[in-house]
């Protein structure tokens, strides 16, 4: 069963929250007021039967990465699957920016930790974490150096950035690559789901440089 992403978000915001079975000690606040507003907006949008993509923010998205994304990157429409396929066939550089939690530091050596296989667009390079709203100095350097190596210093190289459908990390990473000076950044917002649903080639890849 496939629930459209927007409906999913809608359901999630309205789902009644059952009380835990066991009484628990009080915990710190992790809550934010925004979703209530969002649910009202969604209600309105659904009532009109048409949902416009959110506008582009002035800067990077800082959290809630899995949510409806804009239709454009710096005013340029996101690629559809056919366009992405054409670029793939013509040898554009494909960058997957989904995050990846490696085996934690501090985990007892004999503890089982399973790094699940990461399925991506065939031939893509996986640069984890580079689509977060703010980067550590380490990740920032990793992104710059990876781009430089993968393009051989060619700032005009066509680069397609993607992650999952409705994932802001690809928007962030694409925007960031533009800020780094890359002039032909293309954003494939349908991501791996769009690619896979179209029956296009995939493969299991590891983080670039690992």
């Amino acid at each position, binding site marked *: 069963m496939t629930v459209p992403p927007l409906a999913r978000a809608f359901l999630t915001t309205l789902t009644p929250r059952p009380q835990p079975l*066991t*009484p*628990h000690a009080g915990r710190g606040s992790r809550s934010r007021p925004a979703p209530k507003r969002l649910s009202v907006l969604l209600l309105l949008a659904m009532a009109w039967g048409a949902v416009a993509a959110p506008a582009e923010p002035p800067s990077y998205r800082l959290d809630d990465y899995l949510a409806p994304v804009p239709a454009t990157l710096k005013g340029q429409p996101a690629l559809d699957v056919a366009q992405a396929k054409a670029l793939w066939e013509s040898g554009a550089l494909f960058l997957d920016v989904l995050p990846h939690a490696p085996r934690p530091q501090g985990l007892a050596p004999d503890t*089982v930790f399973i790094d699940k296989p*990461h399925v991506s667009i065939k031939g893509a390079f996986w640069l984890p974490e580079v689509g977060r709203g703010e980067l550590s100095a380490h990740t920032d350097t990793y992104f710059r150096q990876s781009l430089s190596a993968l393009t051989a210093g060619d700032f005009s190289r066509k680069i397609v950035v993607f992650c999952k459908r409705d994932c802001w990390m690809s928007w962030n990473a694409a925007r960031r690559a533009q800020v780094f000076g890359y002039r032909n950044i293309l954003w494939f917002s349908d991501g791996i789901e769009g690619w896979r649903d179209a029956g296009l080639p995939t493969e299991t890849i590891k983080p670039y440089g690992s």
Partner: protein
Amino acid sequence: MPNRRLLLQCALLLPVAAHAQTAPGEDTWVGLKPMFFEKPIDEAAGYVTLDAPVRAEDAALVPVQLKFPAREKGDRVVAATVIVDENPSPLVTTLRRGADAGAFDFALRLRVNSYSYVRVIAETESGALHMVKAYVKAAGGCSAPASKNPEEAKANIGKMRFRTFAGQGMAEAQAMIRHPNYSGMQMDQLTRMYTPAWYVTQVRVRQGENLLFSMENGISLSEDPTFRFSYLANGQPVRIEAKDSTGAEFGQTFAADGAAY
């Protein structure tokens, strides 16, 4: 509404295939089982039951209850292993019971990283293994930000609470150990790096000289590990001891009725 945010954050780490899944399969478990168990496991009833939410409110704090009914000598459950199939570190805890092998209820809170079976494998005195499972829809529990800032967590580390529910007519008690229990998969909000794992690896709760239960834990147990369990006060003090992954040891003794000792 922390829930939605957690769902979204954590869903990022989901394998893409989980989306289209309708009926949950056993593929993951088939791969996992030999990593933890050599003997065959059946699903015979009467050894343990598992109560878990179908959809969890907070993936980093999923309440799970195990109930061990009383059994004949020779066929009593002495240990139970709790596993979350889809967590990168699937083993939550191995619980061992004390010598008193009457009926025993035990509740804990765990992290669920993506839609997953939670399963309990009970081991009897004879070494036989019996399993129960429940499918839980929750995502992002391993990478969800800690609810307390690091300074606050550090200042209170190892503090404990013990309370009984005799006053509410329930032969139960609750033990809580303050500990950030970092999974190692949480992003530090300041450095933007993963916070190293730092978690309670062992717990032991005794009533006088008798062991009530002990646990050996992985990183999938929730922050501030809290357990609720069958308990009948008998005048003996209750001692809670814990050890964490850095080797630090914590302990506190309480009066039988839960008052500070």
